């Protein structure tokens, strides 16, 4: 098996204006590729945590880490090899599920440990500004959607299980889909004591699947990070 192409870098950064731009700009300037990037506040309001899944074929990991560390606003960096990390990602997906399919979708959601967080008819959840999204036409005429239910499902899991779920619900019809990108923490040593690679990064647990949705979305920006150019 070939070594994984991605690595996870988590950076604790100062919660100041422009920090996300600095990180993104560094990756762009140095030609480091990013698979995904997630920013979330930590339990200390002075700091945010950025989880970046980097393409280690675009640059040596050590070089990426060292360059990132030079940013004055980056307080600490932890590098996680995929095999040493607990990796999770969250998915919000709106699925077309009429009376016939409804039972099957609910079963799938249950099998993957997901949660149905919204239900309704298409018009109420479709962004009218989006073109080409199935079912957008005739939003006003709810009559035409009569009997066509949709549900929005939240699922947190490994990227693999999210991929699997996505593939399984796709035949039902996906109208909206948003993935957060990966977040990760170091695996604990068996027997509870934190391993030596565990960095002293205090974290909220943004992927706790039973928590209310609004507090779990890892892309929820803090005020200072809001509106940053990617």
């Amino acid at each position, binding site marked *: 098996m070939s070594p994984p192409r991605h690595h996870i870098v988590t950076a604790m950064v100062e919660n100041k204006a422009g920090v996300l731009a600095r990180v993104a700009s560094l990756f762009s300037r140095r030609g480091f590729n990013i698979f995904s990037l997630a920013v979330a506040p930590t339990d200390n309001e002075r700091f945010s945590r950025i989880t970046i899944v980097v393409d280690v074929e675009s640059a040596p990991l050590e070089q990426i880490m060292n360059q990132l560390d030079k940013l004055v*606003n980056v307080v600490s960096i932890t590098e996680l090899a995929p095999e040493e990390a607990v990796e999770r990602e969250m998915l919000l997906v709106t699925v077309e599920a009429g009376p016939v399919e409804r039972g099957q979708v609910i079963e799938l959601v249950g099998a993957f440990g997901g949660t149905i967080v919204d239900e309704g008819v298409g018009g109420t959840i479709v962004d009218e500004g989006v073109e080409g999204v199935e079912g957008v036409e005739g939003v006003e005429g709810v009559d035409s959607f009569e009997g066509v239910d949709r549900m929005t499902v939240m699922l947190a899991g490994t990227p693999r299980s999210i991929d699997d779920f996505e593939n399984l619900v796709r035949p039902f019809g996906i109208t909206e889909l948003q993935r957060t990108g990966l977040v990760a923490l170091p695996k604990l040593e068996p027997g509870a004591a934190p391993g030596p690679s565990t960095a002293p990064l205090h974290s909220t647990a943004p992927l706790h699947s039973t928590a209310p949705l609004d507090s779990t979305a890892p892309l929820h920006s803090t005020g200072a990070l809001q509106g940053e150019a990617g």
Partner: protein
Amino acid sequence: MRLTGAQALIKSLEMQHVEVIFGLPGGAILPVYDPILDSSIRHVLVRHEQGAGHMAEGYAHVTGRPGVAMVTSGPGATNIVTPLADAMMDSIPIVVITGQVPTTAIGTDAFQECPITMVTMDITKHNWLVTDAQDLPRVVAEAFHVATTGRPGPVLVDVPKDVSNAPMDWYWPAGLDDLDLPGYKPQTEGDPAQVRRAAELILGAARPVIYAGGGILKARAAEVLRALAERTGIPVVTTLMARGAFPDRHPLCLGMPGMHGNYTAVTAMQRADLLIALGSRFDDRVTGKISAFAPDAKVIHVDIDPAELGKVRRPDVAIAGDSRVVIEELLRALESLGLGPSRGSSVSGDKSVAGDKSVGGETPGTWATGTVTAGSVASSRPDLAPWMAQVRAWQKEFPLAYDQEEGGALKPQFVVEALRDATPPDTIVVAGVGQHQMWASQYWKFDNPYTWVNSGGAGTMGFAVPAAIGAKVGRPDKMVWAIDGDGCFQMAAQELVTASAERIPIKVAILNNAYLGMVRQWQELFYEERYSEVYLSPDLPDYVKWAEAMGCVGLKVESAEEVAPAIEKANGIDDRPVVIDFRTDAFEKVYPMVPAGASNDDIIVGPSGGEGGR
């Protein structure tokens, strides 16, 4: 004490012992220019903001203290982007203060608004947009701290006009604990295990070369570098950024490596079995084709910036730390392995070479290597004599050379040598970018650190005149000569008005070959002599009249015989700047040369091509 933000800003600069600001006022920075009238800080009014940035760089180069520039928002700020990029490439500590439109107007496309912190994000070590006047003293202290510690570099502080006008309660951060820099912790000391491994590699090498870079100068490590070279007997190459870090007239000095380095420096690195890289970064202009660079060499890489270690060439021993501190640690490690200081050695304080032009560079073995303890690791060290014999043979066979024919066209190298021989040994030489820069670096004898100022990494044309002004402001006691090209001179000559007005008596030697010479050289060699947009004319502008119009003395030299008298006349003028227009041979090319992308083994030593073709 209640101050305005503007007053607090100027007072903060005073607290940082700033003695001079290079700048030009404008709308958004207006409030800050008012308290300058009451300050002890000198302000040098430039004619273009780019000049302010390069002056700050020149000042920092020669003093080691951060240069300060202040400009207004929008175009004032963007005009100083080039000096920031230049300082970033060459790790020069400068602090640039920019005015900004009021915080309430930011983001509205206000008059002279430019998001300069965004623009300069990747070409400053760090920058700040100050949104609260109360933060100003702390941010200024942080800016100077970041600019001058670790790997030095440029910083920018953007100050909106309403922040300058707002009241604040004065304070001054008592120490580092009062700064808000939780993510900034430069490492200076090397890992002891790695230092010991490095010492072992040094004692095991038969063909070692010390590859000294600009980091030696930044770390004030010239003396310990010399101690290391002398104790080990290892020859030293000094990169374009490190000229003067090791005396050119020292028997162990091989001079400049790289694309236009001398044959011996280039080839010694190629054949080395160990490169000891100290504060150098394996720049492409040094390595040539990287896969063919120093193929047999193990590498010890010491740099204060961990990101440099392994960025280009994977080192066998990587040491993140300040060059001076690590060299001191290395000397101790060598001693513990049996290589002690030589008796009567010159570990520090011996200036017998520095400043003494009489020291012969031709005689090997005039230094005393360290004492070796019997039975120690050092006692089984390979004999370096065969290696040094090889080095001497290269030096003899392939010296730098040019041919000044009697009555023939004036050779630029001849001018550089004449200048070198007619000026005090600690003269500061400042170059622009191009052929003249290479000739200056090749033919000057730099025997003192901080006497060579140039734009290395960025290659910024127009650098020389303003940088020379900044250097002269920083070291008014020293003679400062800018060696410039005619193309470069035209890019920033207006700053000679600044120099005249401020009585900053720099001297400028224009090596006027009427061409963008380096580009011409490449078109001749690599584009079948198809010269595209490189001709400038020797007479347009009239450099003498132009110099006089700017309040300088202007002289013109057209033949070899006129060179020495003109330099003598220029050296005697100390109340205003002097410009000498040297009409030099347009066809002269810089040699040796490693073509771009070629291996350093393919060095061309002279015009007829090939090794030894001269």
